[in-house]
């Protein structure tokens, strides 16, 4: 009789924890780290002439360069988004919004990843008007004027998409919103390195996206709290 009671309790606990797993995947402790590099000769990034907007020009001691192929020492490739494109069990968007700044007539950061339905706050830190225009095709398209001192634009995207962002006033301003279906992503830094943390055990497809070159994918299997390495090499052309 007593043993039967314990069995029932054990089953209930198991079922309960099973339901918990179903409702919310456990934050794993596996990770994928690596480096994004290039082979070949990258195009020369061009200096941006902001002289028509003196309040921006004076914020930069040397001219800002275009960022479509941003490289670093050791053939590092910056602004590459590395994310789990398959195998992720999905998760709800974090309550913390991501922040996008218009500062010195530049978009900071150049590439901003976020999760579907995650809050997005866009600030104008400049003494000039901006008119941000994300060129979305799957999500609803909009453009909004933001004079200096305006409150932040508070928005979100409800479908995954890679969205080029431009300013309708300053043609050189250029960035990307990367709306993903996963919370597991990273952007390669100046040294090309990235670090995706908190992965539960599983079989994943890891994709690296760069704005100018075709995306690349790798299969990575994580068991337990493994730290796996995945490196990506992009072939670049001077023109």
């Amino acid at each position: 009789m007593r043993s039967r009671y314990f069995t029932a309790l054990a089953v209930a606990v198991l079922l309960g924890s099973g339901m918990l797993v179903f409702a919310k995947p456990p934050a794993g402790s596996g990770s994928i780290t690596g480096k994004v590099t290039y082979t070949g000769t990258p195009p020369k990034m061009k200096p941006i002439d902001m002289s028509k907007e003196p309040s921006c020009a004076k914020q930069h001691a040397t001219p800002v360069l275009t960022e479509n192929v941003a490289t670093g020492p050791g053939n590092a490739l910056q602004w590459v988004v590395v994310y789990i494109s398959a195998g992720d069990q999905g998760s709800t968007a974090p309550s913390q919004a991501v922040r996008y700044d218009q500062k010195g007539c530049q978009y900071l950061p150049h590439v901003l990843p976020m999760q579907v339905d995650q809050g997005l706050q866009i600030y104008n830190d400049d003494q000039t008007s901006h008119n941000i225009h994300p060129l979305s095709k799957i999500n609803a398209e909009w453009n909004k004027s933001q004079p200096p001192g305006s409150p932040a634009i508070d928005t979100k995207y409800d479908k995954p998409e890679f969205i080029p962002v431009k300013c309708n006033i300053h043609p050189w301003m250029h960035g990307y919103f990367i709306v993903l279906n996963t919370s597991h992503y990273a952007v390669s830094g100046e040294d090309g390195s990235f670090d995706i943390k908190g992965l539960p055990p599983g079989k994943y497809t890891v994709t690296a996206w760069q704005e100018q070159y075709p995306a690349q994918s790798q299969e990575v299997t994580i068991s337990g709290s493994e730290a796996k390495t995945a490196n990506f090499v992009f072939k670049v052309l001077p023109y």
Partner: protein
Amino acid sequence: MGKLFAAVVFVITLISVAIFVMHTWWLPIDISTTGPAVDRQMNDTMIGTGILFLAGQLVLGVFVWGSSSRKSGRKIRIFPGGATPLVTAAIILVGLEILTLTFVGSKAWGAIYLTPPAANSLRVDVQAEQFAFYFRYPGPDGQFGGLHPDKIDDGSGNYFGLDPANDIAARDDIVVGSLVVPVNRPVELTLHSKDVGHSFYVRELRVQQDFVPGLDIPLHFTATQTGKFEIVCTQLCGLGHYNMKAYLEVMPEDQWEQWLKSQAGQ
């Protein structure tokens, strides 16, 4: 009351004329070879229209003054022959004035628009877009690369639509946001627009020319003074029109050569 009104008319007229005669708000300095002819034309127009303005206002004032003390019941006098000869005379007078100005001014116009640019002109391509101007120099090879509107990509700085991957002439083209020219050398611009109508206007050059999408419009000038001058868009082109401007920098020849070399290095 009538006499007061007449006095006000006289005062306004004389003050307005004085402002023009004393050049209180006059044209900015002229830095182009074709500028003096434009200024002369402007001056002639101001004198012609000024005299008519002065005469018209003074006659109005005199009539107001005279009529104010008129007793009612006095016979109204009209222009001999009625309104028809009066209006005809006015049309002939104004028409003659406009024709004369056009005839005299055609020389100034012709110097800018009907004279081909000098053979040693510096060629610069201009791309206007919402809301900036971009300028292209042919680079060390002296050749402009072809334009491919489908290749235009502001994000990577390709404002003109060059195709350096397939077009060797385009590889060394210099694209900048300011128009930098040597002093005393003829400059030949070709104006293109990426999107809508814009206008290239430099007050000090006395030159104003619209951009028309789909057309390559030639324009030439020679700057005779060094300095930095504003290029503004004077064709309402959208939300950011107020903000659409660039700078014309006129430099001594050797300094300009250096500037060009430093740009080619990038």
